[in-house]
């Protein structure tokens, strides 16, 4: 028997047992109470699974998920009442209506981040409720809508809703699992971990988030139709209830957001707790206190949720049993003369009179300089001289107030960062920004060369991509770390991986922000060697660096900035002797940055 207790095996066993039990239950037991409890579990679980796509994978916490159930319920009920056709016909329509509303809402709400997004989803629930109350001619106001009673006999009990919600739950889990495996899912997780970085490596974050939001609403809307039929009565306070949204969020948090099965487990647990307290205390106020307290406890004491915590525990145990694998960075340096690619005379990047202000600070003040193809250009200057702002303007994290930025003959200053990445611009960050929860290999594979809808559906890591990523990791000397989580690497190791990640898109121009900062000398040496090797292969570099001996050894020309302007550009030796530059770095009466009155 080779049976080892792994997370995957335990999960597979539990899932098979659960599905068999769920399908068989109505055939074995005819207790309508338990059928109702179970279909409420399915409902809660499928809503939590939908929430998890937009809030667990993508990191955009929403308190508005329950509203999509309401849209589906109202759409299905209204169509049924107007047409007198069977309710089941309109269940898919309910899903489509919810998805369309999600798309329209996402077009605006997905531009917001963090707390602003949560606030707007809270507002969404209440506005929906108010509209349902006040639009009496259509929704019936507070009187609600009463659906026709089911046509089949009473002995069917709740089995039709039971199986309908079970099928919808299965479909939601399938969709969620599929998303997790595709490029779409990898992109969503990249957005959760670090949205700016995701954009920097070519992920069209807006489109990704929008797709996630629509996917999260689709089955919730369909479930709304089924749920309305099961209740045979819907009203604004029941359908747009913020507490219901809180419950499903709690389900996902408790089970484990970001995992495929966590929200399912959480949905069942929360529904059972709900039923139990209803029987013990008769619901009401105790209920509210209890759910509030559980939510606080989960967020404070079990922030990862049950399933991810259990998986972590199993992984730790396995790692301990298998012992630590000896891993080391390949620090070999090629022993040969530095070789420079032929100078083509082409300008790869040019900044023309670029300006950027922050409140009173004129961080970049009429900056102009060019980077020649095949060069390793340095950008240096005292602290606060505007180097990082200049980098962010080139790379697209900021838009200039005025001026032009030309990349390879094309004006790019108005293009979003992911488009610039597609045009051949790569960058690393001063403080590395890998996605800490992903493996090193997944990090290197994450960049996307272009956006297409078809690509979203592709597997997250294809064979060819994995092979190329391994080559790149070997190139920077990090091949031994491919399976490790990026968050576990040392800072210098992360810097090497970030270079490999940048290379995945085969950029023409690579921006390096302080590559040697905070890195051991051995890794710096390796890095310099790799930069030379890449440059010999035709890659152009623009490097911000404080380590002046390194700049002198590696770069030519050197552009010097002070107070948001270029004050000098020459070879390293010439720049170091330039009195203007010395004054900027050392001058007694120089402030380093100019603040306007």
């Amino acid at each position: 028997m080779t049976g080892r207790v792994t997370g995957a095996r335990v999960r597979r066993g539990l899932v098979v047992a659960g599905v068999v039990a769920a399908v068989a239950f109505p055939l074995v037991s005819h207790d309508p109470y338990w059928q109702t409890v179970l279909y409420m579990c399915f409902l809660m679980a499928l809503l939590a699974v939908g929430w998890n796509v937009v809030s667990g994978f993508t990191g955009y916490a929403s308190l508005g998920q329950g509203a999509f159930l309401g849209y589906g319920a109202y759409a299905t009920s209204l169509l049924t009442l107007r047409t007198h056709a069977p309710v089941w016909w309109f269940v898919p329509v309910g899903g489509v209506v919810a998805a369309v509303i999600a798309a329209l809402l996402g077009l605006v709400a997905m531009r917001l981040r963090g707390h602003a997004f949560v606030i707007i989803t809270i507002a969404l629930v209440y506005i929906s409720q108010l509209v349902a109350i006040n639009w009496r001619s259509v929704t019936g106001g507070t009187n609600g809508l009463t659906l026709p009673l089911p046509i089949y006999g009473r002995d069917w009990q709740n089995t039709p809703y039971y199986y309908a919600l079970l099928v919808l739950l299965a479909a939601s889990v399938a969709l969620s699992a599929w998303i997790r495996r595709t490029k779409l899912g990898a992109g969503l997780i990249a957005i959760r971990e670090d949205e700016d970085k995701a954009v920097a490596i070519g992920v069209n974050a807006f489109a990704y988030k929008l797709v996630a939001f629509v996917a999260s609403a689709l089955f919730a809307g369909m479930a709304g139709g089924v749920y309305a039929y099961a209740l045979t009565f819907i009203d604004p306070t029941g359908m747009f209830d913020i507490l219901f949204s809180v419950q499903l969020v709690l389900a996902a948090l408790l089970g484990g957001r970001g995992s495929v099965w966590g929200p399912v487990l959480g949905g069942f647990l929360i529904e059972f707790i709900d039923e139990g307290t209803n029987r013990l205390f008769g619901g009401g106020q105790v209920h509210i206190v209890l759910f509030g307290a559980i939510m606080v406890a989960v967020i404070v004491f079990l922030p990862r949720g049950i399933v991810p915590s259990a998986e972590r525990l199993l992984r730790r145990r396995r790692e301990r049993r298998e012992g630590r694998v000896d891993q080391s960075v390949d620090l070999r340096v090629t022993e040969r003369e530095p070789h420079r690619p032929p100078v083509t005379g082409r300008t790869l990047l040019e900044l023309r009179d670029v300006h950027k202000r922050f409140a009173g600070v004129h961080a970049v003040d009429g900056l102009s300089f060019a980077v020649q193809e095949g060069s390793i250009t340095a950008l240096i200057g005292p602290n606060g001289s505007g180097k990082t702002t200049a980098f962010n303007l080139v790379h697209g994290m900021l838009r200039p107030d005025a001026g032009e930025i030309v990349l390879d003959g094309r004006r790019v200053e108005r293009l979003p960062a992911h488009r610039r990445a597609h045009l051949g611009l790569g960058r690393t960050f001063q403080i590395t920004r890998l996605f800490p929860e992903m493996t090193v290999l997944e990090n290197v594979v994450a960049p996307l060369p272009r956006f297409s809808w078809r690509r979203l559906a592709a597997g997250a890591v294809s064979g060819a991509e994995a092979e190329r990523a391994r080559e790149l990791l070997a190139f920077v000397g990090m091949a031994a770390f491919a399976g490790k989580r990026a968050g576990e690497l040392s800072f210098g190791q992360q810097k090497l991986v970030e270079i490999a990640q940048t290379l995945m898109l085969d950029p023409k121009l690579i921006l390096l922000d302080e590559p040697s900062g905070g890195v051991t000398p051995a890794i710096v040496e390796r890095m310099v060697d790799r930069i030379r090797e890449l440059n010999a292969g035709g890659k152009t570099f623009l490097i911000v660096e404080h380590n002046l001996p390194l700049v002198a050894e590696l770069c030519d020309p050197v552009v010097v900035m002070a107070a948001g302007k270029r004050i000098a550009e020459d070879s390293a030796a010439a720049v170091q002797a330039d009195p203007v530059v010395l004054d900027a770095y050392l001058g007694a009466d120089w402030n380093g940055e100019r603040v306007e009155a």
Partner: protein
Amino acid sequence: MTQLIEVLVLGLLLGGIYALAASGLTLVFGVMGIVNVTQGAFLVLGAYLTWLLWRVLGVDPIVLALVTTPIMFGVGWLVYQLVIRHLRDAPKATTVLATFAVGLVIVGGLGMVFSNDFRSVTPAYADRAFHIGALYVPEARLYGCGVAVVLLLGLWQLLTRTWLGRAIRAAAENPDAARLAGIDVVLVAALTFSIGTATTGAGGSLIAVLYPFFPATAYVWISRLLGIVVLGGMSSLRGTFIGALLMGVAEMVVSTYVSTSWTTAVPYLVILVVLLLRPDGLFGRRERRDVAVAR
């Protein structure tokens, strides 16, 4: 015309009280970066405390703000130590969920103790009004706004004239630099949270005299307070004051000229419109978001 002036005056008086109620949300967001949606529940808790003391002691409810404010300070301290302290490393959105959950505990607890019936605090002047020319100004609203403005001025003095105030503002501007300057940022955060709870609770005392309330009123207040601070740019106390006046006037205008059933929609519409068109609010600073901060 008289009606319009009256609506404006009543709206501004209401807005003054709103400003006190919303000051806590702004203060806590400014210093800790947490959108503390518990504030709605704190406000209703303040109202219930006032009701209870008024019933038991028979003291004027507005004067009772002197008693409820320190009690609410203690409540804030407790909530900070039990929950908020542990959220320092949690994602921003998670902290909103957590404070919402704390609000649920308070709202449910109030329901268990006081039931879900409407309560109202009715001192002798509750139904009286001043008639100034053709204008009709309810006394309670005038006194309430007066006390709110005095308390806000006191808060402003505290923030601008005392060492604690300077520490709070320093921690809001740049926590790391404040820490380097020897400020105990955690202590400052605890004090800020408690002060914010106290001012919101005081707002609840004043509002108890104006409107009947029951536990679930907290949800209405969450959105109203959010609407106000979103309008004012989240972390600016001055912005919040102006946002509160605008909100008071807007609600009065809608309930007079449109319909009272749409009045509760005003805060949500404000939230939607402001966040979508001007996410930094009317008075918020545009902040640099491009520099990676280790926080």
